[in-house]
């Protein structure tokens, strides 16, 4: 029976020799990576939300100005870098290699701006006395989970942004990058942006200093 299938009846989408998803194996791989990574981040964010709701004296250290405005600018940087990334994929679809490099450089600038602003934010919080295991005395009772969740979630996200910037640079620099490579790189970059869309409201907007 299997012989008959192998000999000449392999015509259906699922009988082999066809591409059921109509995407290359690399792109399917990236989709599956995005799927698994979204589960990693959602587990972290659900865990964070759990302790956030269950802790009555959760610290609210972020002043609306400057901290939250600062984080909003970071969000705008990432969103704009996503826009330049779709423009890069668009240029790549038209075979415009110079355009691809130009738009990817724009994306790298957006991503780097995000990284620099975020690291400055971290330095500021560390200066105030925040550690992964505790909050400064001025913020009220010590809530170690605040520091732990903050540094873990934003740190993992920052690592993804850094990886993304390197990935983008490699794709832009390599002469033999195909349209599919640019598209896959875009998938990863948009995913990093997507994760921040959840990190920003959960971490920053739920811990704004009351006036």
């Amino acid at each position, binding site marked *: 029976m299997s012989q008959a299938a192998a000999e000449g009846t392999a015509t259906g*989408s699922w009988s082999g020799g066809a*591409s*059921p*998803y*109509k*995407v*290359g194996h690399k792109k*399917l791989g990236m*989709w*599956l990576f*995005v*799927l698994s990574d*979204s*589960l990693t981040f*959602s*587990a972290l964010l*659900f*865990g964070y*939300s*759990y*302790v956030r*709701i*269950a*802790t*009555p004296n959760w610290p609210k250290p972020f002043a*609306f100005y400057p901290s*939250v405005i600062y984080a*909003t600018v970071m*969000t*705008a940087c990432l*969103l*704009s870098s*996503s*826009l330049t*990334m*779709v*423009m890069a*994929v*668009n240029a790549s*679809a*038209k075979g415009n290699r110079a355009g691809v490099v130009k738009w990817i450089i724009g994306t790298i600038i957006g991503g780097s701006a995000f990284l620099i602003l975020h690291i400055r934010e971290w330095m500021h919080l560390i200066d105030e006395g925040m550690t992964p295991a505790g909050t400064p005395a001025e913020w009220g009772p010590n809530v170690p989970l605040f520091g732990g969740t903050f540094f873990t979630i934003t740190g993992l996200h920052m690592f993804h942004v850094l990886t993304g910037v390197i990935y983008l640079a490699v794709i832009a620099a390599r002469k033999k990058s195909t*349209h*599919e490579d640019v*598209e896959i790189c*875009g*998938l990863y970059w*948009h*995913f990093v*942006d*997507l994760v921040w*869309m*959840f990190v*920003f*409201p*959960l971490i*920053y*907007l*739920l811990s*704004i200093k*009351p006036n």
Partner: protein
Amino acid sequence: MSEQETHDHSNSGSKLYLIVWFGLIALTGIEVFLGYKQLPLHIMLALLMGLSLIKAALIIFYFMHMKFEKTALILTILPAMVIVISLLSIFFPDAQRLIEHSANR
């Protein structure tokens, strides 16, 4: 095969992406405004997550081109993601129990 897809993408044009980008920025603005208003935690959490889900959908369907993929791919990726993530909500009643427990102590 991939060339045909390519044409579909470029036809959708950069204007559409610009509109989606404006939408995302506007939704972020609404979220920041809600943060400024300081509503009770549960309402905040529900509203912010609702808005963020709209943003996530915009990014997945337009920026990540999910809208232009084959239905088979969408059905392979999306339901798995949505169901597993939704199942994590099972923890929330327990968080509520903990805070009531500490209030009664």
